[in-house]
């Protein structure tokens, strides 16, 4: 389990439930490493304002990480973390490696809309 303040996805059932019960989902699949920590910080900071988005993390090295690692959209990724954005259960964007606040909000605003 990752030591963040985000909600964690730890099982495949939890993954399916998250996608089924939320229209907009951002999942960061990583470790507690230097490239991943800044992305978790960005997500935690955005959580109060982007109430229409479910922010979750997932441990890359745990068995659950397979659901992100095996996505066609993450094939060829060679940098942690893998960050995937889902709308109505479908992947709409995916990034590999560290992302800035500006990069993350650009994707959120494009696919999920800016906060009201």
């Amino acid at each position, binding site marked *: 389990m990752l030591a963040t303040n985000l909600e964690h996805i730890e099982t495949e059932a939890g993954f399916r439930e998250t996608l089924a019960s939320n229209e907009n989902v951002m999942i960061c699949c990583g*470790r*507690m*490493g*230097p*490239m*991943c*920590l*800044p992305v978790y*910080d*960005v997500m935690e*900071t955005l959580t109060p304002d982007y109430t229409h988005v479910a922010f979750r993390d997932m441990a890359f090295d745990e068995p659950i990480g397979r659901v992100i690692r095996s996505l066609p959209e993450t094939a*060829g*990724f*060679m*940098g*942690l973390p893998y960050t995937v954005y889902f709308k109505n259960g479908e992947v709409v964007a995916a*990034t*590999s*490696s*560290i992302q*800035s*606040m500006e990069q993350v909000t650009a994707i959120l605003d494009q696919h999920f809309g800016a906060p009201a």
Partner: protein
Amino acid sequence: MATDYDIVILGAGPAGLTAGIYAARAHRSVLILDTASVGGQTVLTDQVANYPGVATTSGRALSQTMAAQARAFGCTIVPFARVSDVAVTGAEKSVAYRGGERARARAVIVATGGTPRRLGVEGEERFVGRGISFCATCDGEFFTDRPIAVVGGGNSALEEAVSLSRFASRITIVHEFDHFQAEPWIVAEARGNPKIEFLLSQRVLGFAGDGSLAALRSAHRETGEVTETPVEGCFVFIGYVPNSSMLEGQLKLSERGEVVTDGALATSEPGVFAAGDVRQTRVRQITTAVADGTVAALSALDYLNEEGL
């Protein structure tokens, strides 16, 4: 609407947080703003083993402790502050942030640090996370039994190349000069590693590949001879760019964009001080940033006291 502070500190890395600790402990009101998360470049350091008094820790843990100390002394810290305007000339100094808030300051400490330098060549952005990486600890294992390149000639580049030799099948160190800036011991270690090859006096032209990285193209700086090195990964360690663009035209900067300071870390503008990686200095370590933060804060406090502010 503006809020008044005795000291506004730009940057929440080790220099800025240390300055905050000293200034707030002197009962001054202190606001620390950062455009990213607390910790600066320190957060990107997986393991810190040369900070005196702390056997081994992570950059994140060290930063969080510093931030907790600063808050305990009364500092207000705003990460991801979206700083949009900085005005430090004249008696009234102010910073606009978070889309409409403004802080007025009697003194300012610039501790904005640096950003890892990019090559700025064709294909670099396209292959970030798909072959190009900036963290050997994070991404090294993706390149197990694959050929990679490391660009750079300083300590970071050579240390990471040696570290990556645990994973990669072959490592080509690509460097712009015919000699290294790195310390002799790590140069010797790299030269003695059978997996490491050297391509010196090179200007990187770009990266090529179809979906994933396949080759690095470079040219000899004197002869112009072009070399295409087959690689599936490339780690770039070519130093830092000082985060000083918002201060252009307001403070004296060096040719490289570093803030120029005197021995008291005063800048060209009265009441403005600079600390850490953003200022013109030869050594950039967490320890030197902490020392800079101390000196800058004490100088700022002297300034406020002398001016009766």
